[in-house]
């Protein structure tokens, strides 16, 4: 083996026979598309239905209490937030920008930094909106009965506390740790250009 041409000869001996044929790849594409989009589409439809129900409640049920109005607005905002976030994902799935490796690494660095900001700020705002909405919206339904207020709010507050103090911090730590590591790797990679 004495020159680049010999290396090329060796390189070309790689076994590519086990790659799927064009029909096989089409099947894989179909399966991939369905899996990727099904979950997000289901979330969007559910969020749209819930937001629609909440909007129809606003127009059909004329509440006398300001707490209910605040709750309705907060829950509608949270629903819209959920729709927009997931619709953005689907939009990204279908859009593609032709980038070279250098541009792509820069793009990934920006995207991951934006994702980190999303977990730290935007997601918190959405969750806060939904939590406040639930707390306010529930009041009118249970305010007639003191015991019902205590039980309902105890359950709701317990649920929200678990979500805010247990579930979210664990998910947040996992996501940010992964993103921080990725951003660091990308920074190292961009130094190679």
């Amino acid at each position, binding site marked *: *083996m*004495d020159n*680049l041409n010999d*290396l*090329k000869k*060796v*390189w*070309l*001996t*790689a076994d*590519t026979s*086990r*790659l*799927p044929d*064009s029909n096989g*790849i*089409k099947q*894989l*594409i179909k399966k*991939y*598309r369905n899996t990727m989009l099904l979950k997000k589409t289901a979330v969007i439809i559910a969020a749209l239905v819930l937001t629609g129900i909440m909007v129809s409640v606003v127009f059909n049920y004329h509440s006398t209490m300001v707490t209910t109005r605040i709750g309705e607005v907060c829950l509608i905002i949270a629903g819209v937030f959920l729709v927009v976030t997931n619709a953005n994902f689907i939009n990204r*799935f*279908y859009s*593609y920008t*032709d*980038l*070279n*490796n*250098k*541009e*792509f*690494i820069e793009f*990934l660095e920006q995207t991951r930094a934006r994702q980190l900001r999303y977990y730290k700020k935007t997601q918190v705002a959405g969750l806060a909106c939904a939590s406040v909405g639930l707390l306010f919206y529930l009041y009118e339904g249970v305010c007639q009965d003191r015991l019902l207020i205590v039980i309902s709010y105890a359950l709701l507050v317990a649920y929200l506390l678990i979500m805010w103090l247990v579930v979210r911090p664990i998910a947040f730590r996992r996501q940010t740790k992964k993103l921080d590591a*990725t951003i660091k*790797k*990308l920074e190292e*990679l961009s130094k*190679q*250009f």
Partner: protein
Amino acid sequence: MMEFEEIYAQYSPQIFRVCMGYINDYEQARDLTQETFISVWKNLASFRNQSKISTWIFRIATNNCLRALERSKRLKTTELPFNLVIPQEESQEEKLTFLYNCIAELEETERIIISLVLEDLPQAEIAAIVGLSNINTRVKIHRMKEKLAIKFKQHGQFE
């Protein structure tokens, strides 16, 4: 405009070899090849011939390879014994494994560039795929050839 089937038949072996050169793992290279053609299929209608179709496909493939670093799997880099002299009668498969292991010791961008060189792509096209200037690409290719030559000499592969 080429049909998807035609593109797949023409480029999938090349893309697989480039992915294999980068990742040095058969299963992962096959997954990366499939992901590349999923992207090609999704975006073929919006491809506007602003670059050559081969440049576009190799960009997608190499970008996918670079993205693989986001997954935690480590790259296979087998440590090469220092004084190992590989006998002349070794099989093609062993030679190929040796080549992959040598490439695996290079930096990520170098692995991409050398894989594209071995696929016989012109230097200008490699520069357009990677995003480096032509001069920079030429210098990098020259350095990599030297690095590989040293490795092969150390292991008795060069005269």
